[in-house]
């Protein structure tokens, strides 16, 4: 009985890793599409979003089945409930990557001004998502804590980008639409960073039983 349960928990873990990998793929595609100004890359994101939604449903029903059939306690219960919460964050990351991809065709016709650090922000966000999935894979609290800490970096990037865009509009009011689109992209990346922090928080919870930092709610 227990071995079967362990096996199911392992499968759950593997499915979560797969879903995490999907998230990483989507956000890195979105970032590459932005940096390389390649609309073809952006077009690849939408099908992945369907895949990630499918995965979320699958993992959710797997968790509920485990909760009902095995009535887990202690660490097992934490693991399953954390998984239930994590898939929501992962799915949101997927959605936001898709949102970025939808804006990109309006941006990619133009050269990004060098001083706007959106590329750096995208890279930092990818790092956070990758690390949060890594923290889950390795069940490593130190990585999870590092992810939570690095949220400030992404937040700072957002504020910086916002200020540069304000000055861009002040210099050239015709750039308003472009600046707003860029701001949206930056905001999406900032939100993705928050979801990565959530995932890291749930990893902490599932390992230690304590919520490291209260994750921001939607």
């Amino acid at each position: 009985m227990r071995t079967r349960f362990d096996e199911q928990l392992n499968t759950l873990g593997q499915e979560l890793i797969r879903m995490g990998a999907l998230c990483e793929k989507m956000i890195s595609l979105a970032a590459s599409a932005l940096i390389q100004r390649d609309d073809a890359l952006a077009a690849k994101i939408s099908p992945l979003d369907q895949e990630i939604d499918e995965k979320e449903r699958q993992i959710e029903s797997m968790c509920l089945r485990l909760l009902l059939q095995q009535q887990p306690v202690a660490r097992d219960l934490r693991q399953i409930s954390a998984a239930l919460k994590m898939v929501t964050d992962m799915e949101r990351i997927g959605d936001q990557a898709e949102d970025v991809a939808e804006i990109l065709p309006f941006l990619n016709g133009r050269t990004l001004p060098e001083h706007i650090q959106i590329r750096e922000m995208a890279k930092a966000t990818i790092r956070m998502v990758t690390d949060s999935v890594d923290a889950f894979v390795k069940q490593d609290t130190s990585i999870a804590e590092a992810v939570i800490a690095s949220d400030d970096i992404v937040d700072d990037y957002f504020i910086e980008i916002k200020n540069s865009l304000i000055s861009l509009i002040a210099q050239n009011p015709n750039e308003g639409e472009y600046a707003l689109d860029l701001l949206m992209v930056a905001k999406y990346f900032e939100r993705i960073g928050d979801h990565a922090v959530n995932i890291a928080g749930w990893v902490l919870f599932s390992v230690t039983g304590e919520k490291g930092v209260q994750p921001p709610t939607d």
Partner: protein
Amino acid sequence: MTKRIFRSICLVAIAVFLASVVLFLGVLYDYFGNVQQKGLKTQTELAAQGVQTVGEEYFEGLSPKGYRISWISADGSVLYDSEADFSEMENHLAREEIKEALASGYGESSRYSVTLMERTLYSAKRLPDGTILRLSVAQSTLLTLMLGMMQPILLIIAIAVGISFWLAHRLSKNITAPLNQLNLDDPLNNEGYDELSPLLRRIDAQQRQIRRQEKELRQKREEFEAVAENMAEGILLLNTKGMILEINRAAENLFGTTHSCIGKHILAVNRSMEISELLSGIEKGVRTEKIIDLNGGKYQFAVSPVKESGNLSGAVLLMLDVTEKEQAEQMRREFTANVSHELKTPLHTIAGCAELLENGMVRPEDRARFYSQIRGEAGRMIALVEDIIRLSHLDEGADDMKRERVDLYELAVETAGSLSGEAESAGVSVGVDGESAMVDGIPQLLESIVYNLTDNAIKYNRQGGTVKVSVGHCPEGVRLLVSDTGIGIPKELWERIFERFYRVDKSRSKELGGTGLGLSIVKHAAGLHDAKIELQSAEGEGTTVTVVFPAAKE
């Protein structure tokens, strides 16, 4: 085993004991019955004597203890009975002992009472007057006897059971003790039962076999590990569920993991979707290959299913670093494309000019210009083809070229002289300084190094600029230095300018001529001489190329 032996011994002991008690009682009962019968007979004789001598008075005052005396007439009516009212007693002629006594003078019989709790022995004697004297005695039956003896028997049973328990316990322990003390690590060195020796010999043989097989297995494993650990290709063994069974060092490095990943799922090591997709092919049992970007390099991943007697039992993942191969392949493709393009351009001009001339569309006074253009383009093609031939020759290793001792300074002066025309038309002054320095090398190649570097320095210079060629000794050997005051090269392109057909400023290449292969030839030729090339350049200020040759051996 001890329990079973104990139980058997106990049961046997108790069963034997009970059987002997019963048999013993039976025999004893029979014996006592006989003794009583004999005593009864003697008593009957005595009483008969008494009755004969005394007559009826004999019975008066008779108080027999334990006996019952009856006197019966010849017709069967009872004349006297010591215990019952004889007047009311029935006729006794039908009784067995009476019948017998009447017939033979003496008779005996025994009868059980109604309750079976008692047996009565009868003994009858016919007196001379025809009457019969009968004595009877009650004897307790076996059952009564046993009931009577119940207490001592129970006591004896209890003692006997106790003793048999104790003995059985000790005995069973003694029997199993040698079995328990068997040293199975050294089966042949045991004292105990001879009956066990075939078993022990067998165990010994099997143990030796196991040790041998273990050693073989270990050896094979060590061999496999030695091979796997030292190969440059990464190897990963997976079971059907995707758990890692084995991983070698190259694979560990590639995935950035350690040996501790054994037993974990492959997803925990690498979750890239390409690898997941590749592995999903295992279930179909087919070998799949794919080139995947990983850690900034290109790796060829090959997944082969492992089958055991037709059933899928896992997969082998083999990873080959094909970064360089892919790059070489890429370069070859680019080179071919570039060569075709570079060759086609002058051909178009030649074909165009020739066509115009053929159709007589060129005025006679212009013809000379067209002819010279055709010749110029043909010259360019020849130069290009020569460069390509030289380069492919260098690619082959230039084994057939003769090495000689060459004075690099002399070579530089000669080259500068031969390029003076170009320098003059470009408005660039060329100066050679330094000292005589000998290098062991292939003269043609050394010449092309100096020529190409000086030629570039002149071509990519500015009007009124200078080119300085200097040759001298340095700690590492002989140094050739070519510096100019020209346009310079941006730092990020320093590596690329040695690529075939690479031009920093594509717009100027046509006007300046050249094949785009010069620096590539310099790089190859320097490589063949074990020389090192260093580049120093600043945009708009100039470029300095330093080539350091190993000094000629004395």
